[in-house]
Structures are given as C-alpha cells and as structure tokens.
C-alpha cells in the first residue's frame, strides 16, 4: 500500500515536471525520422532508438530527482516515515519504467513495424529501465550538482554502451552478453527480429538477477552515501 502511494506520488511529480509531455515531443521527433527510413534500416534503427532513449531515460532523470529531493529535505524526512528505503527506490524505478514503457510502446506502435513481440517489448523495456535507474541512484552518491552527476555518468555510459557494438558480430563477441546492457540490447533486438523462447527466457532471467543485485547495492549506497552521507 505504501509502495502504491509512493508510485502514484512519483507519477504525479513526473507529470507536473513535464516528463510525459517531453516524451510526447521526443516520440513525435523519432516517428518523423523513422518514417523516412526504408524497412531494412528501420529494423535496426527501431530497437536501437527504443533501447537508447526510452529505456535509458531513468539514468538521465534520477540524478536530478534525487538531488532535488535532497535539497528540499525530502530524504531527511524519509528517515522518520514508515516508507522504507527499498520502497522509495522501487517507487522511483517503477514510476520511471512506466514512462519508458509508454514511450517505447508509442514509438513502436506508430512505426507500424510488421512483426513485434509486444510482451517481450514491455519486459525488456522494464528490465533495461530498471538497470539504468538503479545505476543512476548509485552514481548519484557524492554528487551535489547536476553537472557533477552528468560527468560521473559518462564513464558508466561508455562502459555500458561501447560493448553493445559486439552485436555487430566478431569472433567470441557472444562473451560480451555477460554485460547487462548487451544482454538487454540482445533481448530488445529479439522483440523486432524474433528470438528463440529459451534464449529470451535466459536473457530475461539474467536481467532480473542483475536488477535484483543492483537494487540491493542501490539501497545500501542510498542509505549510506545519500541519506546519511556516511
């Protein structure tokens, strides 16, 4: 019940701050660009767009959200409320995943791509969004300004995004699947190109485990480095 209320409060906050509006604009922008691509290029561009923007939006916004709430004293008050740190974090992860899924569905739906696995699209967007939002919470520790946060995200982004080029394919490139972003992109590609059910299941289970590990670490980092600041 507490979690449900926290999610609703976070969604109201996101609507008030224009998250949904800005993603309507961004979706239109992507749709204009995608509508001019031939189908063979669209089949590569569409998963890349969904993976690189809606799925990763949590990383972009969570830094500002936590810094703002820290500045407003929300995190100090949080300590004396019944809301647990894990519920606070889950509420952020779930509410941002809802924006991600809405944007991913809209971009895919209006691109009129012939064969889409909708269930897998929702699952892969939620799992990818979770990873990046939790990563953002961990990066946020020790940051006092948005510029500091943005700078700290650069090496993490490079670490997560550069290995994705392994999907082009070269000897032993499958080894890169161990990197969560590569696994997530592989799953996202499967949404549009088709994927064997056991491969999809394995990737999804792997991403769930990564999400769980990141959640445990994020809770610890959030309590020690952000709320109590050691």
């Amino acid at each position, binding site marked *: 019940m507490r979690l449900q209320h926290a999610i609703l409060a976070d969604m109201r906050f996101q609507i008030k701050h*224009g998250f949904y509006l800005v993603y309507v604009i961004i979706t239109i922008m992507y749709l204009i660009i995608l509508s001019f691509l031939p189908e063979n290029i669209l089949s590569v561009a569409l998963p890349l767009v969904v993976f690189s923007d809606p799925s990763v939006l949590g990383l972009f916004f969570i830094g500002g959200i936590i810094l703002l709430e820290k500045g407003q004293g929300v995190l100090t008050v949080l300590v004396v409320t019944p809301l647990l740190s894990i519920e606070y974090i889950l509420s952020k992860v779930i509410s941002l995943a809802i924006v991600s899924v809405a944007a991913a569905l809209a971009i895919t739906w209006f691109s009129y791509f012939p064969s889409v696995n909708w269930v897998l699209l929702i699952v892969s967007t939620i799992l990818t969004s979770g990873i990046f939002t939790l990563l953002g919470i961990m990066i946020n520790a020790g940051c006092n*300004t948005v510029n500091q946060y943005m*700078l700290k995200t650069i090496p993490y982004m490079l670490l997560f995004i550069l290995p994705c080029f392994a999907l082009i394919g070269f000897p032993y490139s499958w080894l890169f699947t161990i990197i969560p972003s590569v696994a997530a992109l592989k799953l996202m590609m499967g949404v549009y190109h088709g994927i064997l059910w056991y491969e999809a299941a394995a990737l999804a289970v792997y991403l769930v485990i990564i999400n769980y590990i990141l959640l445990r670490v994020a809770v610890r980092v959030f309590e020690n480095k952000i709320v109590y600041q050691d």
Partner: protein
Amino acid sequence: MIQITLFRNDIKQILRDPVMAMLLVAPLLLISVFKILEVFLIPFVALKTGFDVMPYAPCIFSFILLMNSGMLGIVTGFMMLDERDGNIAQLLEITPMGRSGYLINRLSFASILSVLYCVVSFAVFGLVNLPFYSKMLLCFLSAIYTAIIGLLIFSGADDKVKGLTYAKGLNALVLFAFTDLFALSWLTFLSWFFPPYWITMMIKSPQSFFVNSLAFIIHVVWLGVLIFRYGRRES
C-alpha cells in the same frame, strides 16, 4: 573592469573544480568521437553498403556544431540553476555586477568557449568548405545558440528536474537542422522559426545573403525574447 575580474575568477574557479573543467572540455571529447567516426565509419559504410554520406555532409557538420554549442548551453544552464538553488545567484546579484551582469558573465563565458570549439571544429573536420566570413558568422551564431540554450534552461526551469526535462526536450530542437531531408512542407515551415534550421542552411548556401541575414535575425530574436522574458520574470 568588474566583468574582467569576475571572468578571471570564474576561470580560476573552474580550474580548481575538476568537474567543471572536465565538463567544459567535454566538447573536445565529442569532436574527437565525431572525427573518429569521420575517419573510420564513413569509409566503412561506403565499403559495406555503397552508401555515400558526403551529400549529407552539411547536415552532419551542422549537427556537430549544434551538439557542441548545445552541450555548453546545457552545462551553463545547470550551473546557473545550481547557483540559484544555493542562493549564490542572489548573492552575486546584489554585488556591483548586478543581475544583468551576472547573466552576461555566465552566458558570455560559455559563448566564448562555444566560439573556440566552433573554430576547432572547422580546423578538424574536412566535411565542408566554407568562405571565411561564413565561418565567422557561424562562430558568432554558435555563441548565441549556446546563450539561447543556457537561458532556456535557466529561465524556463524552476528546479533541477524541470531543467533536465527542458534539456531532454531541447535535444529535439536539433531535428530542425535536418528538416530539408524529410521534404515535409509543414515541418520545413515550422523549422524556419528555429535556429538549428538556419545553421544547416548557412552551411548549404554560404553565399546567400538572404539565408545569412535570416539566420542572424532568428538567432538574435530568440536571444532578445529570452533575455526580455528573464528580466520580466525576475522583476
């Protein structure tokens, strides 16, 4: 004199803060990445698919200039937002520098860097061949674009999160640099009112007095409106 002293202090402050120093050299990283792409990716794509990227060179170069100046504008916008949250902006506004001095100081610093990175981009990329006066005008307009982005974030956003939302939305502005490729008359017409469209047009038609004049006017009008809006809001 006050401006020069503050400007010198700003440079000292930035050099002391490694985060700010890194952020301000971040466009160099971006330029390096694009150069690597120019050297390796363009021939690779041509070899693999036979697709010639060169007809799109003006759009690519326009994108590089807009990304650089946009990035500096976003950094400046967030710097000013943080200073407002920390009440530093209010403190600076009651010094002899005043509110307008504070704004000029912050925006001119980013704009000068924008000109610098614009010059670096001209030197590094061989994508387009432009006359000297066109390069000068593009440098000047890049500086204005940086100030526009910085002001849009600072005067438009009430807090950091709204600032991030604005920054995300402002990325969509870059689409207007490519609208000619889409051949949608309504989109091209809409683009006329936005600076990115005119940056591409200037690179495509450097000799056109009409294009250069309109590019200048659009940039100056945007900057003027934003400064007016900022002044009215603050008063």
